[in-house]
């Protein structure tokens, strides 16, 4: 079984799960009208399932995943989520610089003048501009 087949199989099972479990719970049934709320989602899910099954048997696509890159994607997304949570909780002006700094360090930037510029000058500049010039609310 190739990686391609495994991913396609996962997709088909997700499609089936959505169609038979999530859809009945999450979409209301309506007794009138020419199309009902479930019409379009049902069509979309059947397309996914059928195309997925066809692809499972016919596709010769070769998917390669680099383990190191995958870990870096996961770490990067984790930084994003935590940073946004902290910004929401404690305020943009305190954690946006931390956010920018951690991303730059993650990318491997070590030159202090660039760090100073992109992690402090820019985020605080944006904050000042949005809050005081544009009069919009940031967390």
């Amino acid at each position, binding site marked *: 079984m190739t990686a391609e087949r495994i*991913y396609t199989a996962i997709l088909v099972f997700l499609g089936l799960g*959505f169609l038979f479990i999530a859809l009945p719970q*999450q*979409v*209301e049934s*309506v007794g009138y*009208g*020419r*199309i*009902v*709320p479930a019409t*379009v*989602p049902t069509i*979309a*899910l059947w*397309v*996914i399932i059928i*195309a*997925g099954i*066809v*692809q499972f048997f*016919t*596709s010769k*696509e070769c*998917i390669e*995943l680099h383990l190191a*890159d*995958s870990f*870096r*994607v996961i770490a*990067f*997304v984790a930084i*994003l*989520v935590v*940073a*946004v949570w902290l*910004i*929401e909780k404690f305020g*943009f002006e305190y954690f*946006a610089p931390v*956010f*920018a700094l951690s*991303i*730059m360090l*993650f*990318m*491997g*930037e070590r*030159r202090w003048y*660039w760090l100073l510029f*992109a*992690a402090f000058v*820019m985020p605080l500049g*944006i904050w000042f501009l*949005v809050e005081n010039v*544009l*009069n*919009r609310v*940031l*967390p």
Partner: protein
Amino acid sequence: MDFATIIAGLTDALTPLNLLFVLAGVFVGQFVGAMPGIGPVMAMAIAIPFTFALNPLPAIGFLVGVNKGGLIGGAIPAILLNTPGTPDAAATAIDGYPLTKQGKPLKAMKMALYASVTGDTFSDIVLITVAAPLAILALQLGPVEIFALMVFAFSLISGLIGDSISRGAIATALGLLAATVGLDPEHSTPRFLFGMFQLYDGFPIASVAIGSLAVSEITLRVARMRGKMRPAVVIPKNQTKDQKSVSFAEYWACRFVLLRGSLIGTFIGAVPGMGSTAAAFMSYASTKQTAKDPSSFGKGDLRGIAATESANSSVAGADFIPLLTLGLPGSASAAIMIGAFLIQGIQPGPLLFEQQGQLVYGIFGAMIMANACNLLCGLFGLRLWSKLITAPESVVFSIALVLCVTGVYLATGGAFGVFVMILFAVIGVIMTVLRYPLVVFIIAFFLGPRFELSLGQTATILRGDVWNLANHPVAVVLFAMSIFSIYWLGIKKRRRKASD
């Protein structure tokens, strides 16, 4: 409408004060529109409170400037960083970013600028000269015809799905499925909320566009980055003129592409309900499919940029046709524009040309002036961007990310929208890695709600009976054209390719 009013209106637009506001608008639009994560629509939303205190003509002129400047600004991050902030710009990135990688970002941006100004001017001239008859024509296209037009658009765009039909079908269906989250357009019942009332209006558009197009690209680039810090864009020194600019011969070679793009954009803009994304991709797909060498697209073909930018910019002018005659917005920026009209005490509709003739022609004058300003401001601004972008990748990407977070927070009114942005960034990364066509997913998502609404309207108007289509000959022709284009552009080409 007498001639004196028209002249009076057009000259109003030429007073130094009004010109200044138009120029300021273009400048703000180009600059803010070019910020990754902010984009042209956000530029309009930010600009609108500043117009409250102005008189109607400078206020609308300023916003027209922001709108038109934003169209050019939006193409800049797409070309330079492959991080489009709007789905239209995603089509620009297909050929714009490869040119940047070849060290020719300035050339790509200039083509985008010229194509954008060309399309814009074309549709403005159409608006000024034949708005009234075109509006009457557009009225004849009802929900059934618009639904058929949408099917036709999808059939053209299906030429972009790449080599695997199953992957294209899955990406389309996923986009449609994501678009069904939230209240359904027919019965207003909530779908797929999973207990999150913030999803009532569906996934916020800004979160999806910026997440899946811009943040996912940044994520992938960061993940693949190793070792030494490089500039975000490398522009070789001692470039020849040919590598830095677009010659007249190159522009002229694109004349039919530009004309087709402008026609598609103007038509789509005059018929509200489809939007500039459909226009941009219809123009790109038809240009690619009718070219003698379709394989050169996606590798930095100037025609790809010309097709996209001329189409999405010409929508902006033609959007004013339903906006002025019916008060019906054809796009997000047109909706903001209507708010500005109302605040200024101007009611778009059947009486507008009679009661406010001079003002309307003043706005038309401002639109033409905005195009000229766009060209001037653009030639200066593009150089500036191509300098700024040579900063290290780490700096450019971290600033871009902070801007994406800020922009989405402001556009969606809370951290929830930012988390949705991150979710779609992850979806974008997974789809790219597994080689599903992300662009197709985005188009399906953006056209999805309108598609479903049109489907419901059509089913009701036909009373559930397909044979009633006989009363809608235009729709029948469009459906036939869709089938033909799928056969011609898809199956036949594929066969020919296989036999080669």
